[in-house]
């Protein structure tokens, strides 16, 4: 039976409730919310004077009302040790979301730790250690002492390369500038750790090296540009589900034509029309459907390319636009490299692919006809030609067409990441669409960002393929911060097999020694490490799958339980204020890093290694604000203008990074990057890229494609986007998605004898996994789409270890076979399997 809360009324927020600034910590968009808290024995009333909204709540409220909140926006939490009521509801004054709540953010309250209402009881409350063959709670002192002693021994015996680290590098939940500085200062400041990787990929690298190498940082425009563009080109992204309120609040008005007033006001000297959109995606998504509903199908162009052929499409568009003379010559001449300027290779040992150069060299290297591209991409020539017109053909009054280019994982985790990214930036540069209103060439992003760390150049380029090294037996100790390889890495079945073997070795050794004999314990662990074992430490807010293999688990606090700063997809930086207590002994990550540094200092000093011990000084932070001042304030570009107090004043609107000054009591930010035409290269001139098409680039992909009948495309879903780690303990979500769905065409289902909700096995040479069949009439035959990173069926099990030259994974181009393993289980029988597409 479909989950219902059976809640028929909610406590009313009293007029004097405490109000806190909140930015949703799940996805990149960073919608503004307000948290209201008040004493448990009080409540507001329906009279306008008796409630925080100042409205008459005895009356039905109208649509989009600021005076209504859903049961998911309410909870009872601890604040300074006392139970309080809490409502976290969307902020109507935030320019990002204007009061809209996504199905993730609108559950912030319900997904908070509450003893009173039994929510998120999965949260980690104490440090846990492997003791007597199971996990047992212990004190911070004890846990950190063990971690420090084993880590120090490994460093003494193997050097810092024996310490492997997996660490999130982002903002939002489990992140923020405080987090990245805390971990960064530890591993890149006190130490120079080289064997480090990021939360969702097996190495320490950028997902958009190409764009950066060309001088174009990936978050270069502002959300308002989506309202001003003549055309939006959306590549490998599904913004209705994964940048929900950016799409709803800024793209849809343009598609509807309701942003024309804004266009005329800001750009008065040119013709305007409702926006058009080009969507490049092998799959028809709910985004495509919504665009058609709003703009009409004549202003939506869905280019359903063959998976992995984006590069051929972009090169053909580049060629055609150049041949038609639809270039922004003035921009190319003034702001991009000329033939006389230096070029360089962007990829190791390759003077052809990914070479950074001037326009002319790039167009010559990348030349591709519409016909060739049609052959490779499976598109029709007129559609590619139409896309070129929508991107670059001057408007009827001769004005340059404004096109915003937006991309995400379909490109980033797709074939030939470096060149494909570069080829898209080529288009933006050639048409003068960076740094200008209605333009931008941007990744849409996953989570918020919040990166400030000491110099990381020692990790090298390409950086170490950490997962592979772990599989090969390297490393003695592994520190994991907010990552779960078991759910979100490639080749994950093999990774899990070896990782379990290596960590079990250490568990067995620990079982043989009394826990209280620290010296004997450390000796036993080190002996097991020297025998191929691995000692693993997991820092997280919830139990993770990889955590089950670890020996020490440290409980972290999340957004709202500590103060935390991050920036969103338009570099909008805000402070989420602490509005509730962390569960149990959970602590801010930056402070965990600091206490670990303190312990390491002590251990090295005890061992008489004063020089090494001294490197761990400077971690005397007592609060997350201390870490912020030591990190962002002192190190970030423009950080000297930014403090917690100043951010608090700016509420949920914050400012757009980088800060350039502090004037009249306000931080002055930067609406768009490169507005002055100076790009992020040594000489300030943007580079074009030679990016000739070369088929499926990663090793083994073409062979896999040839041998298996189904494309196992994969990606995210609205309800669980960036929140699945908490959703596993949320009835509303688990009722809808007990298992990861796999969208399949009706014809494929028929041929394999599959019914709605049947569990199927997806398998290939890399491994096997399971998913729940979701009938999808718009799916193409032979092309399945599986929910990525879901705990009850791991898509990464069937993704090969093939990566690009810079160790970027290639999840999207996965091929496999599918067979039925079970009829729909009980948890699935109440599910709706109707079309996800809105219809009238």
């Amino acid at each position, binding site marked *: 039976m479909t989950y219902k809360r059976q809640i028929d009324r909610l406590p*009313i927020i009293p007029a004097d409730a405490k109000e806190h600034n909140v930015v949703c910590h799940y996805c990149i968009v960073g919608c503004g919310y307000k948290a209201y808290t008040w004493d448990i024995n009080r409540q507001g009333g329906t009279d306008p*004077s008796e409630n925080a909204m100042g409205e008459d709540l005895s009356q*039905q409220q109208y*649509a989009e009302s600021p005076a209504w909140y859903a049961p998911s926006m309410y909870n009872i939490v601890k604040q300074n040790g006392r139970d309080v009521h809490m409502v976290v509801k969307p902020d109507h004054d935030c320019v990002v979301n204007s009061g*809209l709540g996504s199905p993730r953010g609108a559950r912030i309250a319900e997904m908070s730790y509450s003893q009173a209402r039994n929510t998120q009881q999965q949260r980690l409350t104490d440090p846990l250690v492997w003791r007597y063959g199971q996990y047992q709670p212990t004190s911070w002192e004890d846990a950190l002492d063990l971690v420090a002693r084993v880590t120090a021994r490994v460093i003494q015996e193997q050097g810092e390369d024996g310490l492997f680290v997996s660490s999130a590098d982002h903002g939002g939940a489990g992140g923020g500038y405080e987090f990245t500085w805390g971990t960064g200062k530890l591993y890149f400041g006190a130490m120079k750790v080289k064997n480090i990787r990021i939360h969702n990929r097996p190495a320490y690298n950028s997902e958009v090296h190409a764009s950066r190498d060309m001088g174009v940082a990936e978050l270069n425009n502002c959300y308002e540009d989506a309202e001003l563009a003549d055309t939006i080109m959306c590549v490998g992204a599904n913004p209705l589900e994964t940048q929900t309120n950016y799409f709803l609040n800024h793209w849809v008005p343009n598609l509807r034509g309701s942003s024309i007033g804004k266009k005329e006001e800001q750009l008065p000297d040119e013709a305007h029309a409702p926006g058009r959109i080009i969507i490049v995606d092998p799959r028809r998504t709910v985004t495509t459907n919504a665009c058609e509903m709003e703009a009409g199908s004549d202003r939506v162009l869905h280019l359903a390319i063959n998976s992995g052929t984006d590069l051929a499409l972009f090169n053909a568009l580049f060629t055609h636009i150049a041949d038609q003379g639809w270039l922004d010559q003035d921009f190319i001449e003034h702001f991009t490299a000329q033939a006389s300027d230096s070029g360089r290779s962007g990829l190791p040992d390759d003077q052809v692919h990914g070479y950074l150069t001037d326009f002319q060299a790039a167009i010559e290297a990348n030349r591709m006809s519409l016909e060739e591209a049609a052959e490779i991409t499976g598109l029709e020539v007129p559609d590619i030609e139409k896309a070129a017109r929508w991107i670059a053909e001057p408007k009827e009054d001769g004005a340059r067409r404004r096109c915003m280019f937006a991309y995400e994982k379909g490109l980033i985790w797709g074939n030939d990441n470096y060149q494909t990214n570069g080829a898209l930036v080529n288009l933006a540069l050639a048409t003068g669409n960076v740094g200008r209103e209605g333009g931008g060439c941007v990744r849409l992003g996953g989570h918020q960002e919040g990166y400030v760390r000491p110099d990381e150049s020692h990790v090298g380029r390409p950086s170490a393929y950490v997962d592979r090294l772990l599989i090969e037996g390297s490393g003695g100790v592994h520190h994991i911060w907010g990552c779960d390889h078991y759910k979100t890495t490639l080749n994950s079945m093999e990774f899990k097999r070896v990782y379990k073997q290596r960590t079990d070795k250490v568990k067995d050794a620990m079982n043989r020694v009394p826990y209280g004999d620290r010296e004997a314990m450390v000796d036993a662990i080190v002996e097991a490490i020297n025998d191929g074992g691995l000692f693993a430490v997991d820092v997280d807010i919830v139990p993770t799958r990889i955590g089950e293999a670890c020996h020490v688990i440290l409980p972290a606090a999340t957004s709202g339980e500590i103060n935390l700063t991050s920036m969103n997809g338009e570099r909008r930086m805000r402070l989420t204020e602490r509005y509730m207590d962390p569960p149990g002994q959970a602590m801010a990550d930056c402070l965990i890093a600091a206490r670990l540094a303190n312990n390491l200092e002590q251990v090295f000093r005890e061992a008489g290694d004063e020089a090494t011990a001294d490197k761990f000084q400077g971690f005397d932070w007592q609060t997350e604000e201390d870490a912020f001042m030591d990190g962002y304030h002192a190190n970030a570009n423009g950080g000297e203008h930014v403090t917690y107090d100043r951010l608090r004043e700016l509420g949920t609107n914050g400012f757009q990074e980088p800060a350039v000054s502090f004037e009249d009591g306000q931080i002055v930010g930067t609406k768009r990057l490169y507005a002055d035409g100076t790009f992020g290269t040594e000489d300030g001139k943007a580079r074009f890229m030679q990016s000739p098409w070369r088929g499926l680039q990663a090793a083994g992909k073409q062979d896999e494609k040839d041998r298996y009948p189904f494309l196992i495309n994969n990606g995210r879903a609205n309800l669980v986007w960036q929140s699945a780690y908490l959703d596993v303990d949320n009835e509303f979500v688990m009722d809808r998605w007990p298992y990861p769905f796999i969208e399949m065409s009706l014809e494929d289902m028929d041929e394999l004898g599959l019914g709605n909700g049947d569990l199927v096995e997806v398998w290939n040479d890399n491994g096997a996994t399971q998913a729940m069949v979701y009938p999808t009439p718009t799916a193409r035959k032979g092309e399945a789409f599986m929910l990525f990173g879901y705990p009850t069926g791991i898509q990464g099990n069937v993704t090969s270890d093939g990566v690009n030259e810079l160790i970027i994974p290639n999840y999207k181009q996965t091929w496999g076979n599918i067979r039925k393993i079970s009829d729909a289980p009980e948890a699935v029988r109440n599910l709706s399997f109707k079309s996800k597409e809105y219809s009238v």
Partner: protein
Amino acid sequence: MRRCSKLVEMGRRQFLSGSAVAAATAAGASIMPAEAKAANGQARVNYPSNRLANVEDLSENEPLNVAYPDDQAPGVLLKLGQSVPGGVGPDEDIVGFCTLCPHQGYPVSYNTEARTFNCPGHYSVFDPEQAGSQVWGQATQNLPQYILRVDEDGEIYAEGVDELIYGRLSNVL
């Protein structure tokens, strides 16, 4: 849809004119605080038992506009032709739903072909054949469904709702 847009407008007008009513309520409450507290003392709201229609009024797959628990909360009764969760009547196929989208309060409309409720505000889709389950969408709850009873004369009564209705912090105002 026309009915729906009117409803949004109606909501706005009532919001604008609501202050007089509120003032009267407040005055009453301040005179008799003890009684007011006693009246609110129950753990759940008291739902009225309202006759919405007779089974004879319904044709398969044709939604009948109703309102419950009061005329500011629009809804529909729907006969689906096969037994469904929460269904009443001789064939257990009659269901009722509030048609205010639990995301932002836009009125959902019924697509007879897909047999889904669809919200024009932000594209959410709900399935009346699975108790209002959100097939896809932006709401954090499934569509509020009526608890229905059919008497021996075929009269259909609504006697409760299983989720909070959009736009009110108490299902009975």
